[in-house]
């Protein structure tokens, strides 16, 4: 059976929607492809706080998900850091089985970022994509007005914005899908609002390959 866990680390409040868009769109496409999929917000650490780490989880399987009610992804195969600096902060590699993928939003190269990554031996690939730049994201705050509207869903309320990945989520989704093939490109592409950034990321992303060892 194939079972994949995707964990997205993002910053509370200010980049909450970005993280949510990634897991939502990926799991939605997985459903369209007939797989069993689940996307959820971190609950244990709610209410989240500005700049605090919050995690979004996605689980995809070809069998029914029996661990639907567990709080966290214990063995993420794919980890996404929506904000590059988080690479310095936590053991986001914890529980990752060998052959995992780490995707970071940063203008730095994988070679540079490598120094901050714990447990590299488990990695099959380290992907860096300058999502903020590709999506013309005014770091960290932009268009306060619309941001205000998005904020309303940070506590897991109904999604207000009809747009999926209007901003830095788009290039990151592109990186996830292209580097891991977790879902088919053609199923996810139509969902993405920021097509331009999505397309650019496919070519601009920098991938570094490894030969992972079991730990």
């Amino acid at each position, binding site marked *: 059976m194939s079972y994949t866990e995707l964990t997205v680390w993002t910053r*509370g*409040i200010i980049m909450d929607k970005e993280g949510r868009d990634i897991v939502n769109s990926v799991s939605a496409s997985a459903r369209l492809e007939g797989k069993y999929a689940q996307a959820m917000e971190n609950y244990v650490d709610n*209410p989240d*706080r*500005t*700049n*605090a780490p919050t995690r979004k989880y996605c689980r995809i399987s070809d069998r029914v998900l029996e661990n639907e009610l567990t709080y966290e992804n214990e063995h993420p195969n794919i980890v996404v850091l929506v904000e590059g600096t988080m690479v310095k902060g936590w053991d986001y590699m914890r529980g990752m089985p060998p052959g995992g993928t780490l995707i970071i939003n940063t203008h730095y190269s994988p070679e540079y970022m490598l120094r901050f990554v714990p447990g590299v031996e488990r990695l099959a690939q380290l992907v860096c994509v300058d999502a903020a730049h590709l999506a013309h994201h005014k770091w*960290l*705050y932009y*268009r*306060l*007005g*619309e*941001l*205000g*509207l998005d*904020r*309303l869903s*940070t*506590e897991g*309320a*109904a*999604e*207000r*914005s*009809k747009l999926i990945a209007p901003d830095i989520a788009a290039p990151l989704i592109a990186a996830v899908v292209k580097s891991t093939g977790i879902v088919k490109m053609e199923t996810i592409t139509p969902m993405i609002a920021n097509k331009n950034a999505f397309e650019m990321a496919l070519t601009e992303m920098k991938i570094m390959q490894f030969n992972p060892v079991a730990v």
Partner: protein
Amino acid sequence: MATIEVQRQVLPILANPNQGARFYNPELPSSEPFVPGHRTCAGCGPSIQYRMTSKAAGDNTILVGPTGCMYVANSSYLCTPYNVPWAHTQIGSAGSFTAGVAAAYEAMIRKGKWKGQYPNIICEAGDGSASDIGLASISGALYRNHDCLIICYDNEQYANTGIQASSRTPYGGMTTFSPPGPEVPEGKKLFPKDLARMMAAGHPHCYVATASVGYPIDLMNKVRKGLNHRGAAYLMVYTPCQKGFVYETPRSIDLGRVVVECGLYPIWEWNPEKREFDYSFRPQNIRPVSEYLKLQGRFGHLHAEHIATMQKFANEQWKMMGVELPEALLQAADPKNQVNMAAAAEAEAIAETV
């Protein structure tokens, strides 16, 4: 009856940081009752306030924290940033729990069960606790005149639970319980409860004041005045909520100034001896409310007429403060002279929930 007399602290008032043209903060107490390592938002207004307040109070202090951000975020996972005794209490128990602590120390010192100067007893209630669920208990504590200071750190909403409207949420403020939509373009329709004035009017024997994190020394001095006041004191402090107001984190202090300069948060003191309001505080300059609103995402959806409505509200407050209104502000109260906020259109487009 022969009893031990209760000795009470007298805290010195800090000097004004503006010494002529020079800006230089007065010497601050070295003790740090509030230490780093808590889960409040980056740039959290209430925790700025908490830090200043506790620093002003010093080490012989007991803090009471009704449910709210300053409980959930500060004392997460049994990690506490409080270097003085701190106790959580129910959100509706702000005043009563504090009264209990005060009464206990009165009795214990009097009966020789605790030796030392009567501690500063401070309750840090959010606006939800102070203006809604805990209103009666705070009123009770003030009315009974326990020697304590009750502070309302007013971030104008229930932030801890994920930004819901409180009776302190301003007109037009977007929260998860007052979202804008085609039917309700302004989000919140009601104007905030004038809590501080209510406390002053209802408990004229108490020291009551409003303050803002935008004026730290003023805030710290009011804390000390409140503590030096023999009996109950009530302090209402404007503390911007980064998460709910939606602004750039560095602006926390700035907002504290602008809100006052826009007349949306009058700074005053109630003098219990003279039984009169002291409106002498004047900000450096006076601005139209739009300059405050445009800094925050929670107002991003407002239309011209809503902004004008808020300006009217602000103008009334200025009048109350006895300020001669500049022509610009009178003009600003006319919708014709206002423009919609950036996201006013999106607010309607987005409104349909998925």
